[in-house]
Every structure is written in structure tokens, then in C-alpha cells.
């Protein structure tokens, strides 16, 4: 036991003290953060600041079109398309909209914004929205329907709601969040299995190629060496993940500090004109509250607890298999690719089942996938996100956990037998058939 810890300590320290560890652990979340911040920045700030002439010969807009910081609308009178064209070419404006006097509100004709340079897609959408909103309201008014009447029709469009036997309402927001949480956590476990599993494999290969394996094996049992390596790298994974999560959340909290006016822009839209936008804002905040309410309905303690369990269980199950493959590989890393295939297949299979299971957590495929130890770490996360007993019943969860524990003991036992033979075997290309023979041979 003590020796396993000694090996684990070396494996842990030798990885954590590497510069690449610091770089990936700290720089990766920073990069994600910067990327994220840039996306938000560019999606909010278009920076075009267009100057657009609006020739409203039909008098439809009636001063309801307003300049915003990203574009400047100027209402012009008594212009013809030709004169506007000339003005455009003289660069007096960046673009113009000509609304002919004959323009009818009810016509299906579109207006046209003519500009001398291409307009960014975000700006286009904003311009479209400003025009659409005004025109829509005018049309309603011309049909003698007030905006308030329209809102009362449009509000609460969900006339049917969903509930499950356990009495809790099961609204769409919650289903959506469950979907996202299940998908993300399943995917994270998938990535963990690959990153740290192959880290174990490379570690074993390094020991074999550098010929230190036999030196170590003369003072430590092969099983201790393998378990020490798995434990040490598992600890690296845990630490790395915790740092990532802390950094990502921490940086996200910084976001409003860096862009103070960002959130305002994201949610509030420009605050005027009062009537329409205020109603919109209230609707929004109601949505936000509802979102938060659904968010709080999700049992995060359960999810995080299960995440850690399935992270560790899945890692232990697969890393010993990766170690077995690493022990069988000779100098040529290409061999590793082909030997890895039987291990990577169930992982990929699991991710396929997971994408089905987030939608239908109780389908028979999802149930099978969440019980079978080779796929359960990924698939169960998709089901658990829907909660107990909506997504998965308690006995299924417990059975799945028990099977996973049995599974990892089983794979470790098999892998250890392959490992101790493979680690001392040089110069021969080893096939799965031989590895299987070592695994089933009595010791």
C-alpha cells in the first residue's frame, strides 16, 4: 500500500511540476475565457456606426425610428431615389432607405436599404428588427388592435404544461436545463476518459521504452506500479479539473467588471421607446426568474456527487485497460493506435447512447447504457440530470454504481495480468489475441 502511494506521489509530482501542466491548466481556461469574452464583445458591439438616411415619403415612421449608438438614422424629406443615390456616392451617408409615398402598410413588398458597403450580420438583424417592430405595430393599429391586446394574446403561449407523478411541475425550462446539464456532464466524462486514460497509457509506454520497468518491478509488484500510476494520474486529473472549474467560474464573475455596460446591453436592449420595450423587459425578467426557478429545481448536489463518482469509476475502469495496452506496445507508438481501438469503441458507443438518453432518459437503450459498466459513466450522467425518479429510479442508480464498481475491479484484475506480462516483453509485436491469452491464464 505504502509503495502504491510512493509510486502515485511520483506520478503526480512529475506531472504537476511540468511546465506544460501549468500551461494547460491555467492557460486553457484563460483562452476559453478570452474567446468567450471576445464573442460577447463582438456580438454586442458592432462598431459599424452607420449613418443611414431614411426618406419616409409615406410618413409611416412618424419619428418613431431612433438613432442608436451603432447606427445613426437621419430622416430626410423631399428626396428622390436618384438624389439619395448621388448622396450615397458622395459618401454623405453610408446607406439609405427610401419609402415611396405609395408604400402601403399591408403590402407584401419589402423596403430596401441600399448601402455602399456590406453591413455586418448583427447590424442587419438590428435594423430589420427596428423596422419590423414599427411596421408591425402600425399594421396592428391600422386593424384597430392595440399593442396591449396583442401582448395579451402572445403572453403565456404554453397552454399545456407537463408534470410527472412525483408532483413537481416539469416545465420546459427545466427539461432544457436538464438536457444541457446531462449533455455537458456526459461529454466531460467522455473527455476525461480519453485525456487521462491515454495519459496512463503513455506513462506505461514511457516506462517500458526507457527500460525502467524491470528495475522498478524488482522492488515493487507490477500491480502496485500500475495502481500507483493510475492513482497518481487520477489525482492529476482531479486537481486539473478543479482548477479549471474554479478558474472558469471565477473568470466569469470577472466578466461584468471588465465590460461594465455589457450585461445591460445584453439584457435590457436600449431602454426606449418606453411602451414596447418596457413590456418586453418585464417579459424578459419574468423569463429569467422562471429560468432561475427551474435551475434551482435541479438537484445539483446529486449531479455533482454522481459526476465525481462516475468520473472516478469510469476513469478507474478504463485507465487500467489503457495501462494494459500501454504495456503491450513496443517502441512503435503506431501499435498503440490499433491496440487502443477495442477500448475506444465502447467509449464512443457510450457517447452515442448518451445523446439519445438525454432526450429519452427512460428508453430501454438508455437504461441498458446506464447499467452496462463500460458505458454507464457517460450515459448515466445524461439520465441523472433529469433527477430521481424522473430520469432514473433510485434502484437503477444504485445497481449501476454497483455494476461499475464490479466492472472496474474486473477490468483492473484482467489488466493487471496483461500488464505484468507485457511490461517485461520486448521486441515482439503483441496482438489482442495474445493479450487475451495472458488475461485468462491462471497465475
Amino acid at each position, binding site marked *: 500500500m505504502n509503495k502504491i502511494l510512493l509510486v502515485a506521489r511520483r506520478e503526480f509530482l512529475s506531472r504537476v511540476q511540468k511546465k506544460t501542466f501549468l500551461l494547460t491548466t491555467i492557460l486553457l481556461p484563460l483562452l476559453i475565457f478570452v474567446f468567450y469574452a471576445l464573442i460577447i464583445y463582438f456580438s454586442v458591439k458592432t462598431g459599424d456606426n452607420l449613418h443611414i438616411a431614411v426618406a419616409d415619403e409615406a410618413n409611416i415612421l412618424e419619428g418613431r425610428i431612433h438613432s442608436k449608438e451603432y447606427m445613426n438614422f437621419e430622416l430626410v424629406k423631399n428626396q428622390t431615389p436618384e438624389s439619395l443615390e448621388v448622396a450615397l456616392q458622395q459618401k454623405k451617408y453610408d446607406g439609405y432607405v427610401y419609402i415611396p409615398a405609395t408604400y402601403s402598410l399591408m403590402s407584401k413588398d419589402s423596403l430596401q436599404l441600399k448601402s455602399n458597403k456590406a453591413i455586418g450580420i448583427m447590424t442587419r438583424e438590428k435594423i430589420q428588427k427596428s423596422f419590423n417592430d414599427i411596421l408591425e405595430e402600425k399594421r396592428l393599429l391600422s386593424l384597430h388592435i392595440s399593442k396591449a391586446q396583442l401582448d395579451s394574446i402572445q403572453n403565456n403561449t404554453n397552454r399545456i404544461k407537463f408534470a410527472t407523478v412525483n408532483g413537481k411541475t416539469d416545465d420546459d425550462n427545466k427539461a432544457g436545463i436538464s438536457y444541457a446539464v446531462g449533455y455537458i456532464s456526459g461529454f466531460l466524462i467522455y473527455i476525461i476518459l480519453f485525456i487521462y486514460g491515454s495519459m496512463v497509457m503513455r506513462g506505461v509506454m514511457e*516506462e517500458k521504452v526507457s527500460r*525502467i520497468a*524491470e*528495475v522498478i518491478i524488482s522492488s515493487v509488484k507490477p500491480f502496485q506500479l500500475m495502481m500507483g500510476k493510475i492513482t497518481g494520474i487520477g489525482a492529476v486529473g482531479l486537481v486539473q479539473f478543479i482548477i479549471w472549474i474554479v478558474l472558469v467560474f471565477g473568470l466569469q464573475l470577472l466578466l461584468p467588471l471588465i465590460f461594465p455596460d455589457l450585461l445591460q446591453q445584453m439584457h435590457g436592449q436600449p431602454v426606449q421607446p418606453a411602451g414596447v420595450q418596457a413590456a418586453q423587459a418585464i417579459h424578459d425578467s419574468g423569463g429569467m426568474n422562471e429560468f432561475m426557478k427551474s435551475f434551482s429545481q435541479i438537484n445539483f448536489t446529486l449531479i455533482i456527487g454522481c459526476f465525481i463518482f462516475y468520473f472516478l469509476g469510469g476513469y478507474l475502469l478504463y485507465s487500467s485497460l489503457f495501462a494494459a495496452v500501454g504495456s503491450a506496445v513496443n517502441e512503435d507508438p503506431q501499435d498503440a493506435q490499433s491496440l487502443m481501438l477495442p477500448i475506444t469503441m465502447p467509449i464512443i458507443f457510450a457517447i452515442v447512447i448518451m445523446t439519445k438518453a438525454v432526450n429519452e432518459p427512460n428508453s430501454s437503450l438508455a437504461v441498458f447504457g446506464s447499467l452496462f459498466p463500460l458505458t454507464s459513466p457517460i450515459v448515466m450522467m445524461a439520465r441523472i440530470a433529469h433527477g430521481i425518479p424522473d430520469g432514473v429510479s433510485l434502484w437503477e442508480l444504485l445497481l449501476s454504481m454497483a455494476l461499475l464498481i464490479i466492472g472496474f475491479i474486473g477490468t483492473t484484475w484482467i489488466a493487471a495480468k496483461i500488464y*505484468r506480462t507485457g511490461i517485461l516483453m520486448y521486441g515482439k509485436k503483441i496482438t489482442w489475441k495474445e493479450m487475451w491469452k495472458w488475461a485468462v491464464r491462471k497465475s
Partner: protein
Amino acid sequence: MNNILELHHLKKYYATQKAVDDISFDIKKGSIFGLLGPNGAGKTTLLRMITGIFFPDSGDVIFDGVKFDPVNDAVKIGYMPEERGLYKKMKIGEQVLYLAQLKGLSRGEAMEKIKVWFKRLEMETWWNKKVEDLSKGMSQKLQFVTTVLHEPKLIILDEPFSGLDPVNANLIKDEIYGLAQRGSTVIFSTHRMEQVEEICDHIVLVNLGKKILDGTVYDVKQQFKENKFSVKLKEIPANTHHEAFELLDQKANALTVKIKDGFRSNDLLQFFLQQNITIEAFNEILPSLNDIFIQLVEGTTSVSRKFQPID
């Protein structure tokens, strides 16, 4: 108990090959023991059973008077395998410390011993270097230190001098003598006979998984001697024929003769003395271990190692 190690009828069979087939021998405490054999003779398998890496199919390993216990006795053994290496990216000091701790030394003990050894072999400046910065000879030296650092009772060295220049080889050789004097027993596995002849007290030769020779270097040579002598004379007599010997070679006034069965070297000397010829030198030609080795092993087809599952 005078023997550090006794092997009783050790057997290890692979699917198509008897790697070790009923081998028994004893090794005395404090001796330097040579385990010889051609490639693929089963030396490595035998050593792996002695170090507890493999379990024998049958037979016993008695270590220091009691049955060998791979878990607890591993710390009393220092094994430098033929396929050896170190972590390339790890700092040398940390690496030696780690390997010593795996052998059961506490951190403090290990540090002390490392300092002594590093000083003795002039390696003090290596502490923060990495193995990949060392030359092959330097890393061999380091490997030797890691093998003997925990002062094991039994030190097993598989081809310890490969890759060492003569200066470093002598340095290691002196250390091996020193260790033996301080009570450690050294098993020395090699197919370099001149080193064995120089260093070892006792040898065992294995071939095709079987022991074919066992004894002290002196005894073995006596066993395989062919009664050849070289005689250096002041002048060559007219008659060099006598019933007691057969003339094999003559170079200037040095003769190589083989004394026939039933006669002694005295008969030869008498023959020359009677002719009043001055004998300048007279000595027996013993076969080198190399000759014995080749004589015993040649013609057997063991050189190709068959790769079979081992456990």
C-alpha cells in the same frame, strides 16, 4: 547458514520452451558468483525468479536460510537487469531518492546514503541534471548506484559493464570488490568470460535451461585442463621426442607440449635436465573460461530466443 541463496530444482516452462529446466546451486555469502551462459540460455528467467519477478513452476528459492518471500525480501536484493534504464525526464537526485524509497529506505536514510555514494563516485554535481543529459556510461554508473544504494545482501548485476569505458569499468569493478568485502554477495551474469575469470570466485554455466557446469574458477579450469605446458629453453635439444609428452608447437626456443596420460610434468623436466639444458620458464597452460565456454556451448542451438508468454 553459510549460503545466502540456494536454488532447489527450479523449473520454469513456457509453452514451447523449457527456459529453466531443473536448476539447483548454492551461493556462498560474501562471494562473487558468475552466472554464465549464451544468449537465450535462461539466465534472465533464472534471475527473474531469484528476484521474485517470476514465480517458478516448481522448485524452491531459499534466501538466507528461509524460503524466499518476494514481498519482504525484495528490499534485501539489488537487481540491475540487462534491460535497464531510468526516467529520462526526471532529475537525477529525485530519481535516486525515489528508487531508494521504493526499496524501503526512509527519505532521511536515503539522502545520507546518496550523498556518500555520489561523493565517492564523483557525481555530486549531477543532482539537478536529467538522465537524458548523461552519456551512456554515466547513466550506467548512476544505474549501478541505484542498484546498490540500499546495501542489499544480494546484488545481481546482469551485464554490468556493457557500455562502460575501461576507467569507469574499473571503478565499478572496485566497488563490486568493496561490496563483497563488506559482506554483500554479488551475482554476476554475463557472457564476457574474461571479466568472469578476473572477478568471480564461483561460476555456474547454463545452457538450454540446464546447468552444465558448477564450481570455482580454479576447479573448472583444472577440470578442463588438457595437461598442456609451455617450456622455454636456453637452447633446443636435438631430440625433442619422449614418450612422456607430445610436442604441439615450437616457436624459437619456446615449446608447447602436452603431457600424455600416466606421466607427470616432472617427467618432462627430467628429460630436459638429463640433457643438461637450461630451463628458463616452465608453466602450465590452463584453458581460458572462454575456451571452456565455447567448447561446451558450441553446436547447441540455443541462440535464438523464442518469445513466449512469460509470467
